[in-house]
């Protein structure tokens, strides 16, 4: 495939996604059932988080970063249904033949997306299947938890080329020089998308100074209540939230917000993150603190508000692979390659297993 072929294939997928988002029909209900999101949560994802309008520059970057193989295989995770578009686009830019295995929990979006491809040749080159068995020299793109990825890699032939995107979470950094209420609203926007189930979803926010951390926690609680009215949270593990609230109450301060809340901590003994839903851990930091020490490899995304460099230089330096964006845009990463930039390039299955085992970035 030449560059134009690759661009054409990716663009065809984007167009299919746009048609789908414009006229989802009964897909909305099926997605709601499969994802556990509310109806409004599904609409929000289709309307604002499915990448239906990438720029030319982004398309070129995505295709330019893709590999080259006779066939690419994709194993998807379920948590963020719109992620199927980017994952398949990357595979379609890599190889003329693509096999996709959806998660058993969410196998609604991808078949719908593929059925909306209007180019017959491209449609026939991308197949959804239950079994994935890549041959030597073919690429496999894996999305899921580190454990699942290691398990899959253990069954692969040694010469298969693996691009693995594993366990992660999003980190918000609120530095000086920004209105706290603005930062709170932006952060809540990032939380509402996919009910924090994605590996880019913010689950921990670091704020420079205790007073601003307190103000952020208070403002977020207000914003979360408002957000719940617009986009109600979907299915929740209430036991996780009860545990989170009890622990937050003992270890710091708790700010209740409808079906979730915000935990404010000062100098916790170890890093902590909020459970998915509508929850956040806010940690008050001083310069040079690195409250994510030991967790750096799991920080897949960083959302920045204000002058982060002045307060979070140590954190930013410790997470060089994280995809960094403005707060409020953490769930709208540029369509320029995989969302997860921590592990660029291909590796052998053994190298991926070793990386997971060592817990190295």
């Amino acid at each position, binding site marked *: 495939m030449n560059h134009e072929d690759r661009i054409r294939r990716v663009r065809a997928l984007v167009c299919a996604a746009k048609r789908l988002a414009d006229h989802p029909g009964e897909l909305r209900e099926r997605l709601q059932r499969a994802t556990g999101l509310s109806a409004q949560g599904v609409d929000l994802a289709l309307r604002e988080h499915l990448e239906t309008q990438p720029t030319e520059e982004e398309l070129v970057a995505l295709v330019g970063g893709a590999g080259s193989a006779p066939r690419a295989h994709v194993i998807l995770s379920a948590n963020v249904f719109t992620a199927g578009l980017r994952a398949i686009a990357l595979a379609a830019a890599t190889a003329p033949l693509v096999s996709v295995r959806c998660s058993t929990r969410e196998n609604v979006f991808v078949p719908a997306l593929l059925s909306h491809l209007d180019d017959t040749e491209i449609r026939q080159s991308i197949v959804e299947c239950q079994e994935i068995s890549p041959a030597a020299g073919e690429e496999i793109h894996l999305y899921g938890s580190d454990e699942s990825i290691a398990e899959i890699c253990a069954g692969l032939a040694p010469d298969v080329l693996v691009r693995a995107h594993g366990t992660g979470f999003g980190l918000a950094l609120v530095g000086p020089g920004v209105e706290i209420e603005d930062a709170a609203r932006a952060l809540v926007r990032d939380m509402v998308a996919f009910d924090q189930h994605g*590996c880019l979803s913010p689950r921990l926010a670091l704020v420079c100074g205790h007073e601003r951390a307190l103000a952020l926690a208070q403002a977020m609680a207000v914003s979360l209540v408002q957000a719940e009215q617009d986009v109600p949270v979907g299915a929740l593990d209430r036991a996780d939230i009860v545990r989170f609230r009890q622990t937050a109450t003992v270890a710091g301060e708790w700010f209740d917000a409808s079906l979730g809340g915000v935990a404010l901590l000062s100098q*916790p003994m170890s890093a902590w993150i909020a459970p998915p839903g509508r929850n956040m851990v806010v940690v008050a930091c001083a310069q040079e603190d690195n409250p994510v020490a030991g967790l750096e490899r799991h920080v897949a995304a960083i959302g920045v508000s204000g002058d982060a460099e002045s307060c979070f230089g140590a954190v930013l330096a410790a997470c060089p692979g994280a995809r960094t964006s403005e707060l409020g845009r953490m769930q709208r990463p540029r369509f320029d390659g995989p969302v997860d930039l921590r592990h660029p390039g291909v590796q052998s299955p053994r190298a991926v297993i070793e990386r997971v085992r060592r817990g190295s970035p």
Partner: protein
Amino acid sequence: MTVSDRLHARVQAYVAATCASGEEPEPFDLLACDLARFQASCGNGLERLLAARRLAPEDLLAAADIPAIPTDAFKLRRIACHEPAADTAVFRTSGTTVGARGTHAMRSTATYEAAARAWARVMLFPDQTPMHVLLLAPPPHQALDSSLGFMLALFGRTFGSDARWLIDGAALKLDDLREAVANAAQVGGPVFLAGASFGFVHLLDSLHGDRLALPAGSRVMQTGGFKGKSREVESGELRREIASAFGLDDQAVLGEYGMTELSSQAYEGTLRAALGYGAPSGPAGVYHAPPWMRVVAVEPETLEPVEPGHVGIARVVDLANVDSAVVVQTADQIRTRAGGFELLGRAPSATPRGCSIGVDELLGRT
């Protein structure tokens, strides 16, 4: 004498009296509430849970009224009624690759020791036979913050005179085990072999099917999960494999339930049953707590007790936790049974994981 000292003395008296005669020197609930009031007054976090429920410490009338401190909180802040300078022991939960470690600081270990010894005497050594003690763990100087190591050392000192530690660093001292077993067989007298479940898995793997028959009257205590440190083995199967490897009856292999955040332990009652003792005794899989420890199954979404026989998560009232948290909320699933409780493993999160990191993983709740 400080308030803490007085409470330690009351709990030790409670332990001694309930083990000796079965009679309470004072009501359990009274002592639990006094401990809670002391802990709330010292700012261990309980006062915040009380405030969140709009309760004053003086409103507490029964142990069931006391809000429980979640085990996760031990990983995020110090849960103690004394300054770090007064620590005589600091126990930490085992860590995972990512997981944080919980910390349980003790100003005095006297009550812990009294409670651990007393219930071990009832559940592990009811026949009061002197034992050769073999400990499948690194010696305390190699694991200063291990509560299990501390307890095993205590048992070694209390119930035997020649305790041997069978792990050096991460290495299993298999030759030492063989020699100790041979020696026990030669001089006579039963063996008490104890350690973590994952240690037994490694030991069984190292034996490659060999058998090391222990003398009559010997017993094995195993505790805890596998935490990624060995292959996982179903508890019944592990019991059978241990029994087979050491030539014991299955009933001589019993499980212990304890955790770093607690000061008391519960045991299966199989050994007592096999030796012909009455309650607390019973089948494998049912754990028996001492009189100073109450284990209640609660509904994870409301933290209210579930109906007897229903599954809930374990809320533990441990009177021996004098200077930390008298009521601890665990994430362990249990089902209460007559005289005890069944341990059903970690409560699974209903939250789908995908690539999103789990709070469990981060906090090392494995």
